[in-house]
């Protein structure tokens, strides 16, 4: 195959990666969802993948970013930003320069605000569609990607989106491969400069470790002590259920069929 032809057919994919935080030890690591995003990109055929991170470079973040390199990459683009910067403008300008067809990110960061807004804000700025919660990408053809979106309860939905687009991965996407130490050491962090816009609003917030949320009490509104006692002691009774006796199996089946249809569980 000619190198040019190959380059034309290749799908430009950018994966936005962030610094994760281990839930127990609090140490910096590769973020789980972003690593899944990298894995998703690696499952695509003929994709040319760029890893991109916007943030500060220090010991912690370097070891975390090398975790992504250890999945089998030579370089990672690091858009240098100070700690408290709003990274959207920097990322948007970096993406509009490199012009990827598909941008993959995690659903929300494991540090900072973790609001999960980044893909939406980038999409709005670049004017691209955004699709959230992917389980996998089925195929990319003629500038249209066919995606599988993960729904609650193990369900899946098939979507088509016109490229370029931004997608986020769900925890249902396949787990990331291990990071190998050698490639992680050898990989290169390619730093680029970008304009830094400070995030002013967040400086007014107070951030604390998460408090345990109060458990909701079952409040019984009853006029008398007897009603309150009954509510506390009674076992849950459905009540008001419809009971069909003396019906033929067909009539019974029909009633069930109607209920299943109403609830929309039959396909």
């Amino acid at each position, binding site marked *: 195959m000619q190198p040019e032809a190959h380059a034309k057919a290749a799908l430009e994919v950018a994966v936005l990666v962030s610094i994760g*935080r281990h839930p127990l030890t609090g140490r910096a690591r590769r973020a789980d969802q972003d690593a899944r995003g990298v894995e998703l990109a690696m499952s695509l055929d003929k994709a040319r993948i760029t890893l991109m991170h916007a943030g500060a470079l220090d010991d912690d973040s370097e070891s975390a970013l090398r975790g992504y390199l250890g999945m089998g990459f030579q370089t990672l683009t690091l858009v240098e930003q100070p700690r408290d910067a709003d990274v959207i403008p920097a990322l948007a300008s970096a993406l509009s320069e490199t012009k990827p067809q598909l941008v993959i990110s995690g659903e929300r*960061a*494991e*540090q*900072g605000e*973790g*609001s*999960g*807004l980044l893909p*939406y*804000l980038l999409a*709005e700025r670049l004017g691209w569609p*955004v*699709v*959230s*919660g992917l389980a996998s990408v089925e195929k990319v053809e003629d500038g249209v990607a*066919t995606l*599988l*979106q993960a729904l*609650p*309860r*193990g*369900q*899946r*939905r*098939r*979507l*088509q*989106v016109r490229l370029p*687009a931004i997608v986020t991965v769900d925890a249902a996407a396949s787990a990331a491969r291990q990071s190998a130490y050698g490639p992680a050491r050898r990989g290169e962090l390619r730093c680029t400069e970008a304009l830094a816009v400070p995030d002013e609003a967040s400086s007014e917030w107070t*951030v*604390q*470790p*998460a408090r345990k*949320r109060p458990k909701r009490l079952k409040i019984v*509104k009853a006029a008398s002590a*007897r009603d309150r006692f009954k509510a506390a002691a009674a076992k*849950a*009774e*459905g009540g008001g*259920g*419809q*009971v*069909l*006796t*003396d019906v033929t*199996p*067909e009539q*019974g*089946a029909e*009633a*069930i069929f109607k*209920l*299943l249809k*109403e*609830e*929309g*569980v*039959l*396909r």
Partner: protein
Amino acid sequence: MTGILRRDPRQEWIARNRLHPEHERVLAELGQGTAVATEWVGPNGVIRKNPHAVGFIGPNGIKRIDRSGVQQAASAGRGVGHESAAADSRRRVEIDAPAFLVAVVPDMAGGRLSSHDRDLLGLARQLADADSEQPGAVLAVVFGNHKEDGFGEAGVDRLLHLDEEVFDGYMPEARLAALSTVERELAPYHWLLPDSKLGGADLGRRLAARIQERPATGVWQIEKDDACELGWRCTARGAAGTTDIQRALPRVVLALAECAEPVSETRHAVQPLALSQVLPPLLGRIEDLGQVAVDPAGVALAEAEFILSAGNGIKDWDGFHHAAKVLGATEGASRVAVDDGFMPRHRQVGATGTWVTARVYVAVGISGAIQHLQGIQSCEKVVAINLDPGCDMIKRADLAVIGDSASILAALVDMVEQQREEKRDAA
């Protein structure tokens, strides 16, 4: 009837005195019939009871007093000033000229308000009712068809129902366009959406990005604070749920479940509202190709949406498995079915098995032992097929069919297959 108690002490005295010659007549007059008075208000306003007059003679000739209230309820209406308690005690609230609007976009999973939606409406009411001089109104924006008729009880003052076909399925672009129109026309003071996966979480972030408001996500508490711009501050989860961020409440809020108590004391006028503009046609770049058939056997029992569960009443196991396959249901089982070796252990539902959260649970030949019922507490609709009309599963079920499991399942399978056939012919 006026609510004031009118008392005649002499009559009451006669009613108490069983030996008085006019005792019977007075009792009849007081509306206590031929029975002896059991309870009356004494001269000092204290309730007096006559223990000789209550109860009945049990089968063994011993007097029994039933304190469960069954008898009391039967003889209700004896006293004076007795109001009927069954009437709906919720206060009616109508807000004709709201000072502002609080817009809520509920998820309406399965066409009904979810408990998350109700919590969110409770939060919306807190925001709307904070100033009793100038109350705001809660506006619910609902997409697509719904089966909900309890909007008023949930706290909705205004309802904007957009049921055009373009909103069916995963149509974030169309919905976003509609919400932007609402923003332009009605300019709600607050936007509240549930921070729930693929529902409000997705739509809310799109909306915030479009109308360029920085939202608060993962909000679980709000409190009044006049130092803030909108008069409220909130606590939100950040960094994948490991931190709490205290900040001023912004206009767009994505709130977690249990962020507030749902509305229970008032009932609101659900006034329909419509947009004056016709929504412009939209060239969507995201196309929904519909749900993919996943193998129901591969779905974990705990998160399955539709479970067909087998108990000791199943004799025809091939028929059961076939039915589960045709209906596209995940299989569950009672302990007896598992112990007898008909089903694998990981399919057991109940206290020692899996606690399931299915939306529809069909129990076939399961008697409904408490250990089994515990496991299906959070199921929404329960259907029972059983021979015994008196068993506990029937009491729990929303729909119960009394009959033989094998023949009912077979009829159901026929019906589903026949309907699929018709659909295929029509297509």
